[in-house]
């Protein structure tokens, strides 16, 4: 049976090229970069080389603006808690974000609300895109930070980052973006895009798990989240994940080098799949069709539930994901799908497929050959579908 991994927004396969670059630091060069002898200093050089190259690849002026972390969630937590808590002392206790951010942002905002912050959650409308004018209208004297993701993790919609960055700059408000999903698919240039802080992680771009970064523009004051040793210029303690950092750099370099061609190929495959699946009655694509990641498909099939669809896709060798409540253990379906205005019963029937460069046209044809049958089987046993059909008559 054909095996198709269609969950690259969850995580990706480590690239063999990246692994090869990491290997020395998992074996012979095991030294601690804080040590003064040979293998310590070799490790230190690897970290600093990676920092410099990553800075270049994200348009940072100075390598010292790149801080390595354990991944996207830590970076998001640090950006918000570290900067906003400090600004609160100057009377800035307001944060602007969107309703469909990753939980690493939303739950951090909830935690900050308990500390006395006021948070504005901007609408993302039916197409899943924040309106820059909404950001501008929400900014007030007390606003400490705007945090809007670059691309959404469930529906893949790409946000107008550059426009939001410009508005923030004009209003002298800090702008953070969670670029975990966008990295490798969208151009990142923190200087041109007026990004003050940016979160990224390695494992979404064929790098290793457990390593990410937070870009912090020079001059921004940020409290530490992890206290301890003097690593990362006293800002983030803990012995460096050397292999992870080398892997993050290698993965980002490959992603940047191959972006244009890969995006073109992925977009073609994605569009073929979207067009094919939309021929299923009562199906819909979630999120803007054009302003979305080239590898992301998120669809709803009315009358069926997401987890059932996923399990049956798995029987056919397809690994996909869902915004279904049942996968999270709560009764509420995906907050992203609710944020774009889907009613609960439709949001329960969503599926997300996210591809990578290994995806072939044959894979897409195979998916197109099995999904309609699965949807039909589940609809045939669904009392909800029965009601939907009856209400049509």
């Amino acid at each position: 049976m054909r095996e198709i991994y269609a969950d690259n927004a969850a995580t990706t396969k480590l690239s063999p090229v990246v692994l090869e670059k990491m290997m020395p630091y998992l074996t012979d060069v095991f030294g601690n970069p804080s040590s003064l002898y040979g293998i310590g200093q070799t490790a230190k050089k690897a970290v600093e080389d990676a920092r410099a190259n990553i800075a270049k690849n994200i348009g940072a002026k100075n390598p010292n603006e790149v801080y390595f972390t354990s991944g996207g969630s830590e970076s998001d937590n640090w950006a918000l808690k570290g900067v906003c808590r400090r600004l609160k002392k100057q009377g800035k206790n307001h944060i602007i974000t969107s309703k469909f951010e990753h939980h690493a942002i939303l739950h951090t905002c909830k935690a900050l609300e308990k500390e006395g912050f006021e948070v504005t959650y901007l609408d993302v409308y039916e197409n899943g895109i924040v309106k820059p004018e909404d950001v501008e209208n929400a900014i007030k004297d007390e606003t400490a930070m705007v945090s809007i993701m670059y691309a959404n993790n469930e529906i893949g919609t790409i946000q107008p980052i550059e426009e939001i960055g410009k508005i923030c700059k004009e209003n002298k408000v800090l702008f953070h973006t969670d670029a975990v999903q966008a990295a490798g698919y969208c151009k990142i240039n923190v200087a041109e895009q007026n990004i003050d802080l940016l979160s990224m992680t390695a494992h979404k771009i064929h790098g290793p798990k457990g390593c990410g970064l937070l870009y912090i523009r020079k001059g921004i004051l940020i409290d530490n989240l992890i206290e301890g040793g003097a690593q990362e210029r006293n800002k983030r303690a803990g012995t460096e994940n050397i292999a992870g950092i080398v892997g993050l750099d290698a993965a980002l370099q490959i992603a940047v080098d191959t972006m244009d061609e890969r995006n073109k190929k992925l977009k073609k495959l994605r569009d073929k799949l979207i067009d094919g699946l939309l021929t299923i009655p009562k199906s819909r694509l979630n999120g803007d069709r054009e302003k979305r990641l080239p590898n992301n498909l998120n669809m709803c099939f009315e009358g069926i539930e997401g987890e059932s669809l996923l399990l049956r896709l798995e029987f056919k060798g397809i690994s996909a994901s869902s915004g279904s409540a049942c996968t999270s253990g709560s009764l509420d379906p995906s907050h992203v799908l609710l944020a774009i205005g889907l009613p609960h019963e439709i949001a329960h029937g969503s599926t997300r497929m996210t591809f990578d460069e290994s995806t072939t046209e044959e894979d897409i044809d195979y998916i197109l050959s099995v999904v309609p049958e699965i949807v039909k089987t589940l609809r045939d046993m669904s009392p909800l579908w029965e009601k939907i059909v009856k209400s049509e008559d």
Partner: protein
Amino acid sequence: MGFTYSEKVMDHFANPRNVGEIENADGIGEVGNSKCGDIMKIYLKIDDNTITDVKFKTFGCGAAIATSSMATELIKGKSIDNALNLTNKAVMEALDGLPPVKVHCSVLAEEAIKSALSDYYKKQGVDPEPIVGKIEDSDKH
């Protein structure tokens, strides 16, 4: 998914028993609602206090479909009394357990059968409440 289903759950999900409808059913019960992501509908054919046929239709997750399938198997050919005594725990045990977040699916299966039996008694002109107990309205679940 942060859990795994037992082989029996997967079997009943992949090959659900007794899917469908019964024309002129003697009792029909529907519980759950689409907002929560689970709806179960059970059809009963009853002759001489015996459940001679049972069918179901379910909108829901893997556990919802598997518990519906198992519950129908457990009452098919049994007496009404047997069906009334079917607990969600028995359904779960028959499936070799359910992940904690899915226990509510087995509760729904138990309620669906009670709801269908309640409908049966109503159709017979008998007040079901003293026999079956109070059945929650499916919209309010």
